[in-house]
């Protein structure tokens, strides 16, 4: 920690975008509607694309523009569209009867959850900060933030007891991993990055179908009924 060491405008901007991604992850704790949850995920992916453009422009890596375009097309447009298409009728906004499914699915109060998530995020921050990684493309702080995003996504998936939030938690976890990849290995071969992103699309379809089946069987997005399956 060096108080008088001012980061460059580029590093500051990249860090702010990374922190915003983390803040949107925290925002997912309080969303009550599937539609808003998906919208938040789209916003988070949009920020990721913006960060890719910024890193690409400053570090002169034209491959990142393509990655940003693919990210924007898939995660901001396609995946939310697929999710909404698959879950049509399952959103409490459409069916008032199931309105409590997502809204009250938290196992803990919001304030306590945020405090727990802050502790978990702190662990991620300092654990990653202790690693002797020197990132060439993006500032190291963004790497720590990405570890926090992954851990906070875990908290989201553990704490919310509805399939929709758990699926979105998993997808946003992937956003955290992409953020880390952007920081540590910005010059990763483009084909790998794109393949990973399409992998995600497959996961989205599988999860969408699972959620749809679950909703069709139990008429609810809550996972509370699944406990009766225990032996």
């Amino acid at each position, binding site marked *: 920690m060096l108080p008088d060491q001012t980061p*460059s405008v580029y590093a500051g901007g990249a860090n702010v975008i990374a922190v915003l991604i983390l803040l949107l992850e925290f925002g997912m704790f309080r969303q009550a509607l599937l539609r808003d949850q998906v919208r938040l995920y789209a916003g988070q992916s949009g920020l990721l694309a913006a960060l890719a453009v910024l890193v690409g422009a400053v570090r002169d890596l034209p491959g990142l523009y393509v990655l940003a375009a693919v990210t924007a097309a898939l995660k901001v447009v396609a995946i939310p569209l697929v999710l909404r298409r698959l879950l049509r009728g399952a959103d409490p906004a459409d069916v008032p009867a199931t309105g409590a499914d997502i809204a009250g699915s938290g196992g803990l109060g919001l304030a306590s959850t945020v405090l727990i998530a802050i502790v978990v995020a702190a662990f991620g921050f300092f654990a990653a900060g202790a690693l002797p990684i020197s990132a060439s493309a993006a500032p190291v702080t963004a790497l720590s933030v990405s570890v926090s995003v992954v851990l906070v996504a875990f908290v989201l998936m553990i704490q919310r007891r509805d399939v929709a939030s758990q699926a979105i938690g998993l997808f946003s976890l992937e956003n955290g991993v992409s953020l880390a990849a952007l920081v540590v290995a910005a010059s990763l071969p483009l084909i790998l990055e794109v393949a990973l992103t399409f992998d995600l699309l497959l996961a989205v379809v599988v999860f969408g179908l699972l959620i749809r089946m679950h909703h069709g069987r139990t008429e609810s997005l809550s996972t509370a009924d699944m406990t009766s399956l225990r032996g």
Partner: protein
Amino acid sequence: MSVLLPVPVVQVLQVVTIAGAAPAVSGLIARLEARLQGRRGPRVLQPYYDLAKLFRKEALAPDGASWVFLAAPIAAFTCYLTVPLLIPVLTTYGLPLGYMGDILGGGFILSLASFLVAVAALETGSPYAQLGASRAKTFAAITEPVILFVVFTVSLLTGTDLPYALAATVRSSAGQIIRPAHVLAAAALFMVILYETARIPVETHTGTNEFGMIEEARPFEHSGPYFALLRWGSAAKQLILYTILINVFVAPWGLASTQQAGSVLLAMIALPAKACLLGVVIAVIDNSFAKLRLFKITEFASAAFLLAVLGVFTLYLGGG
């Protein structure tokens, strides 16, 4: 104009600016809110007329209330007029009394004032004023950690926690403004200010009988000049908090860097103008959000805490 003002005069002008412009800023926000809701709204200068009217009225005290009840508004108002001496209101350079206390010192004086008002509210025996005082103290305890973490951020950034030093650091380069720690601390402070000035996500600013009232319920039993002092004091507190946000965190430009009368005068105009711009933002927020339920205020505070804590975290990892 090359008339040099002596330092004590500049120091007095700081207090005069805050006390003089505070009702106008409140009036502008009230007017703007009314316009946004399609009402005509009160005049911008209405708070001054209110104060003048209240100062002419007779003062009453509830039966059994001791001298504390009447002394508290005066003492609280004194506290509010002391804080402008500690923060950069008009000048970029620290005035002699500016080093009496740091940000925490200013915060202590503000909480002392709020404590005195709460004690006076307890003196009345009125359940409503007491409820307001109790709520104000409860939620103040929740927002306190946020303020502490904002101060930590400031002291990590500058190596000191004098408000003048942070303002100078912010002016020094663009990299300082955009770094996440600074952005997060400013956002957290803004949320605390929304709470402290009783604005919308926390409390309805206008309105006289509402169950969710916190700050505004406390002066219920005061009347006449004492009530006027409390009203004026809360307007001054609002402008003080805006000044801290604007002149220390967000836009420390337009301050006088010399003792020349012209530049000091310019700063005296620039501060209320910037505060009015912030007031526009506040009025828009007031009209676009619903008031939180009383027990949801902890969630608001936890969001502010999150921002402030993340600010400190990013700093610890080397220059975030």
